[in-house]
């Protein structure tokens, strides 16, 4: 076996195997020249920094040209779908938020919409809860696109755009932390509404953010949009036309870069998206550059939606009125990280035995969901995020399946990369914006 810093060859039945760690290219190149076989198989990853987590790309190359490309996935499989079957419906949000960790609010909302559909309470979810859901999803869209652009730029060697992207994403995460208590993995959206109302100062901070973001977004244009190097690396790379998108089930920016303005927020509105004013940007270049422009424009549109959310926030409940579903108290953050509401404890411990029993049963046992199945889908920053939920009438999900857009879109990698250059593989994969937490779940 070779140590990580030793690029010496290792003989196998498939031919010599080299472990490349950088700085040892000469040895590899000379060995490749001596080999009588032109065919080289490159294993990129699973720990390569350009692979968005732990993705393994298996490339067969002929010179600089990729003749065959395959993905090896599953390195981040954590069995979330199986785990959900052993928790209550409410606890489910704690798990799904960890799937695609860059789009937690989309996972939570899609899951909760499916559970609400099974319960038949879609129309009972309070307006304020829906508005806050939309606002958080759109802020989340901005933060997810910022990571896509930032890491995509870094993979091209453009570190400035990486710094810009993570700088602005930090502003969004600060808002998330203020509202939910956590920067990621929030479990803030719950079946029936939200865990908490917005804290004081949240609206002001979001307004401040929108203002700041309006100033910052043009910087990306100045830095990248017209940049000849940037365009040279991105244009006509990762090409996938509409036919390819439909066959491979690609959605989101990939589909819209092929010119089809398909967006579930417009086509099958949820959470009241039909009442918001926004545009669905498209491109007709079918390439990585088009997807970059779409992401940039979608962030502007998200800012528009966030502003509309702020304007229509009315005081009111953020959870359904049905006490058999809604957890009874406004929870606070305790010193051990668990929430307690002193008023509520006073009531159930001091005045009402029935309230105590009800609280205990609802929290430990959970609510029952009538048997059946439901599918709900939201437009996540990466495409159609679908949730298939099956209930057998119990207090736990019988089966939850996430159709994660990263998983489906990553299949298009081979179609985008084969026949292109090795260096373009990185650009193509970055333009898909796969997040392995979502791919592997």
């Amino acid at each position, binding site marked *: 076996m070779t140590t990580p810093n030793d690029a010496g060859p290792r003989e196998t039945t498939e031919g010599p195997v080299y472990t490349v760690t950088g700085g040892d290219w000469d040895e590899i190149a000379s060995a490749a020249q001596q080999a009588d076989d032109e065919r080289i198989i490159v294993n990129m990853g699973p720990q390569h920094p350009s692979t968005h987590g732990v993705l393994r790309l298996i490339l067969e190359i002929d010179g600089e040209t990729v003749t065959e490309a395959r993905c090896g996935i599953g390195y981040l499989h954590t069995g979330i779908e*199986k785990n959900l079957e052993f928790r209550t419906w409410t606890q489910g949000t704690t798990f799904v938020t960890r799937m695609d960790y860059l789009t937690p609010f989309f996972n939570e909302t899609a899951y909760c919409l499916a559970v609400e559909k099974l319960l*038949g309470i879609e129309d009972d979810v309070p307006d304020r809860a829906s508005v806050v859901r939309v606002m958080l999803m759109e802020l989340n869209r901005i933060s997810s696109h910022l990571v896509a652009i930032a890491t995509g730029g870094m993979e091209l060697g453009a570190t400035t755009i990486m710094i810009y992207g993570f700088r602005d994403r930090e502003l969004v995460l600060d808002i998330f932390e203020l509202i939910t208590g956590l920067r990621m993995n929030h479990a803030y959206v719950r079946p029936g509404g939200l865990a908490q109302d917005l804290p004081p100062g949240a609206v002001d901070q979001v307004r401040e953010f929108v203002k700041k973001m309006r100033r910052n977004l043009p910087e990306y244009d100045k830095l990248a949009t017209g940049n000849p190097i940037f365009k040279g690396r991105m244009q006509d790379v990762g090409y996938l036309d509409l036919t390819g998108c439909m066959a491979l*089930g690609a959605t989101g920016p990939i589909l819209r870069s092929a010119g089809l303005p398909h967006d579930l927020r417009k*086509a099958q509105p949820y959470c009241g998206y039909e009442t918001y004013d926004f545009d669905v940007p498209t491109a007709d270049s079918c390439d990585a550059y088009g997807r970059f422009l779409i992401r940039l424009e979608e962030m502007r549109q998200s800012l528009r939606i966030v502003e509309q959310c702020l304007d229509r926030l009315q005081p009111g409940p953020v959870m359904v009125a049905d006490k*058999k579903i809604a957890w009874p108290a406004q929870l606070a953050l305790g010193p051990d990280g668990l929430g307690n509401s002193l008023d509520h404890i006073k009531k159930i411990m001091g005045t009402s035995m029935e309230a105590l029993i009800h609280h205990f049963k609802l929290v430990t046992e959970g609510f029952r969901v*009538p*048997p059946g*199945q439901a599918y709900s889908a939201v437009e996540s920053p990466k495409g159609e995020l679908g949730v*298939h939920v099956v209930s057998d009438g119990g207090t736990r999900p019988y089966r939850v399946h996430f159709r994660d857009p990263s998983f*489906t879109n990553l299949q298009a990698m081979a179609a985008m990369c084969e026949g292109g250059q090795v260096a373009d593989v990185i650009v193509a994969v970055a333009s898909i914006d796969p997040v392995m937490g979502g791919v592997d779940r």
Partner: protein
Amino acid sequence: MSEPNPKGSNSKGPDPKGRDAKGPDANGSKAKSPDANGSNAKAPDAASPAPVPKGPNGVNPDKDVAAQTLPGQRLDHGEVIGVRHGMFGAGDGGDTTGYGRLVRTVRLPGRATRPYGGWFDEVADELEGALEEQGLVPENAIEKTVVDRDELTFHIAREHLPVVARTLRDDPALRFELCTGVSGVHLPGDKGRELHAVYHLRSITHNRLIRLEVGVPDDDRHIPSVVDVYPTNDWHERETYDFFGLVFDGHPALTRIMMPDDWQGFPQRKDYPLGGIPVEYKGAQIPAPDQRRSYS
């Protein structure tokens, strides 16, 4: 909802729009009615196998549409997937609460009758017509149609799945261009159809979404692959194979995708344990999640 609707437990009846139809569901799905409070005295009666059309409290489920959708009260409607005993998941005795004798039959929503409501009828008509044109008897291909929670589900006989999928994709009046993959469901209580493969098809042209469901027995878990029709299902079928052991015949390379290649067993099946170890929290031993008390 004044019309009696004897068979279709959840069909939306004559509602013209279909989408806003709340009808029977609205009552059935309120979480108030299931016994979250441990006070549903009706359940044992409802689950008794006697074919008496009269339910508890003198309600005739064949007349009162709302009554039949109450969980545990669907009588012969719907698809039985299991029976629950007791209240607290304690199967080994020791239940002193008096709820230990509760028996409830679990039924999934059953067959719907025409009209399905909204565009559902149009899709069903077009599909049946298109299948007939190809010399197929629609009743053989479509085993059952279920309308539940504003969603349309066709249960397809597995040998006809590729034809049905191709028809749904290519017929100009149907045009379900986008398949959102396949999801497996393991229902050990659904005898003869223990493993279900569930496909969601989206039509961007007509802005519609339908569901196809294929049920196969556990001892013969083969389903024809639809990768020919929807190449996007390549990885999805591998995933479903990996987790449920469903074999998609005709798939170009049906291998494990998430689990290691040499993994034994199919983790998402209900007979596969979750695993885990007990952990200590504030001095107490907390058992692994699948060893904790559950509420049936």
